[in-house]
């Protein structure tokens, strides 16, 4: 111990004897007051932004739209991609000098909405949670591509469970999904496994991971619930550096920056030409991904059940669903270790840790917040094609069915020239029941 003290003393003396060091210490001791505000300023700016953001959030009103598909969907899957592309137009930047007021005074954050799939017992539902001001545009977009679709305004389904979960009666398992590789690598999309021709739709049904997932959810018992939430927010390269990251990865994959070498035959081979066919495909896949409209996404899932019927095996439903989009050499989903409600060998108070993780993921789910809220990190980029692959209207074909509600009778288009007489009709329409509970 004494030796260590002697060594530290020696180090201190040698630093102290350095004249430059003494001048720096003296300078700081005299001029520290100039630096003090600059030390606190970055924290104050962040705090200000958060405070304004909270004030903005308080004023926002959200609504839940349940999508009830028709008995049979004949639209090709890229209709859903078009839906996402159109919905992307809610994008409104908060970056740059022009938007300083919007961001730092009004507290506006980029708009987002949630696509949620839930099953209460065996009954599955597909929902969109959006701002009330976006409701009309989302409805119009969906009707434009799926004319037979029925959209109902419903209550928040999270009300169907106690808010103090996990408690004596209820237990849960939660997870956040992240991508294994940098998010500029695409996941497996419908282009690779869906049949484009409507006449081959029966084949499509068998290979649609969403149908398999909904069928899995149909096996849940009363008292069990499974929730999947994807919070998506339109972004451009102004808000995220994904374009730069993609370019850097493409450059690395194509060996750009390396010198052109002379081949044995005497010709010159540029580094790009040395790629194998698959490597070229990967580069193409990255470039195709970033060429489409992008959303900053975070995905989480929760399995909830009453303690007497809680079956941890059923929590694998989510895993099965996400593994349907995984590839070996492009991208794949995995659960985020930090938020997964599981203990690890280095956790000392295991039960306390698991309880905390459950509470945190449950709270973030209710708030529809980012992966590591209140921290900003966690979300990743998915484009319209990837989102359409994961979240689309499932087809019901053959004998195997899901318990997803369906529009039973095909509804014709409304006549364009309806009489619009008195205001009483409108009033009656306004008074029609809204916010129906999910059955």
């Amino acid at each position, binding site marked *: 111990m004494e030796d260590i003290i002697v060594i530290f003393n020696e180090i201190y003396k040698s630093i102290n004897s350095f004249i430059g060091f003494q*001048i720096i210490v*003296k*300078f700081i001791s*005299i001029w520290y*007051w*100039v630096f*003090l*505000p600059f030390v*606190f*300023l970055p*924290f*104050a700016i962040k*705090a*200000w932004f*958060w*405070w304004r953001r*909270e004030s903005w*959030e*308080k*004023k*926002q*009103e959200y609504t839940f739209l349940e999508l009830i598909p028709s008995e049979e969907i004949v639209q090709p899957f890229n209709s859903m991609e078009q839906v996402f592309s159109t919905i992307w137009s809610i994008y409104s930047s908060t970056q740059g000098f022009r938007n300083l007021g919007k961001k730092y005074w009004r507290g506006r954050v980029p708009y987002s909405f949630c696509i949620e799939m839930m099953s209460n017992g065996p009954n599955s539902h597909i929902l969109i949670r959006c701002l009330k001001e976006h409701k009309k545009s989302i409805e119009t977009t969906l009707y434009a591509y799926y004319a037979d679709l029925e959209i109902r305004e419903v209550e*928040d389904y999270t*009300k*169907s*469970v*106690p*808010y*103090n979960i996990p*408690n*004596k009666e209820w237990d849960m398992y939660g997870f956040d999904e992240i991508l294994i590789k940098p998010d500029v690598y695409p996941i497996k999309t419908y282009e690779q496994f869906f049949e484009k021709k409507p006449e081959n739709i029966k084949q499509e049904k068998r290979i649609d991971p969403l149908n398999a997932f909904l069928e899995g959810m149909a096996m849940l018992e009363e008292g069990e619930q499974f929730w999947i939430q994807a919070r998506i927010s339109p972004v451009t390269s102004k808000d995220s550096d994904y374009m730069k990251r993609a370019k850097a990865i493409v450059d690395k994959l194509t060996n750009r920056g390396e010198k052109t070498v002379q081949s044995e035959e005497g010709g010159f081979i540029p580094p790009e030409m040395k790629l194998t066919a698959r490597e070229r495909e990967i580069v193409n896949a990255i470039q195709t991904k970033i060429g489409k409209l992008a959303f900053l996404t975070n995905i989480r899932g929760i399995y909830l059940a009453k303690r007497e019927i809680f079956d941890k095996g059923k929590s694998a439903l989510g895993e099965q669903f996400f593994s349907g989009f995984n590839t070996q050499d492009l991208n794949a989903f995995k659960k985020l270790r930090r938020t997964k409600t599981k203990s690890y060998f280095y956790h000392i*108070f295991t*039960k*306390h*840790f698991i*309880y*905390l993780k459950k*509470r*945190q993921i449950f*709270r973030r789910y*209710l*708030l529809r917040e980012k992966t590591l*809220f*209140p*921290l900003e990190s966690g979300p990743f980029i998915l484009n319209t094609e990837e989102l359409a692959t994961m979240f689309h209207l499932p087809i019901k074909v053959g004998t195997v069915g899901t318990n997803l509600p369906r529009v039973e009778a095909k509804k014709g288009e409304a006549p364009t020239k309806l009489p619009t007489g008195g205001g009483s009709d409108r009033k009656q329409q306004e008074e029609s029941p809204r916010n129906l509970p999910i059955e």
Partner: protein
Amino acid sequence: MESFILSPELQSNLLFLKIIFFGLTLFLIGFLIFFLLRARWLKFIFIYPFTEFLSKNIFGARKAKRKWKKILKKRNNFQEKDYKKNIIKVDKLLDRILAEIVPFFQDTTFEERISKLGSVTISNLDEIEKVHEVCKKIKEDSDYKLSIEEGRSILATYEQSFRDLGMI
């Protein structure tokens, strides 16, 4: 040059600037304290995780339990005045707990929080709404007449909600 920068004369000449910089620093520190107390950032990042990890129960449960025990001890000797005082106390306690477990930013009043909760969380939600109204009347009107039986039944209603929340 070096002696000029480090000279006390220069410092005294810049006293006015020094005061401004100190003022600015104090203002920033003040704002940060205000932010930590008013916004919910500190709760999300530290207070909720810390307390929920330690207590293995929802935030505020321990405090509620402690306060409720105190009320229980004295309940048999309560007079009208004591009932009124304790109903206000318990109502405030429930409001605080609801503010923590219903995490939506939009809810600012007791009624809004109650409307967000389904009857799954608190089984006697309708009764809670009624007793909250009585509590409001007690607060507004100091001459409000409250019988002992009524007081007892109101406390029992709150007790049920605490039980549902796993607080007691």
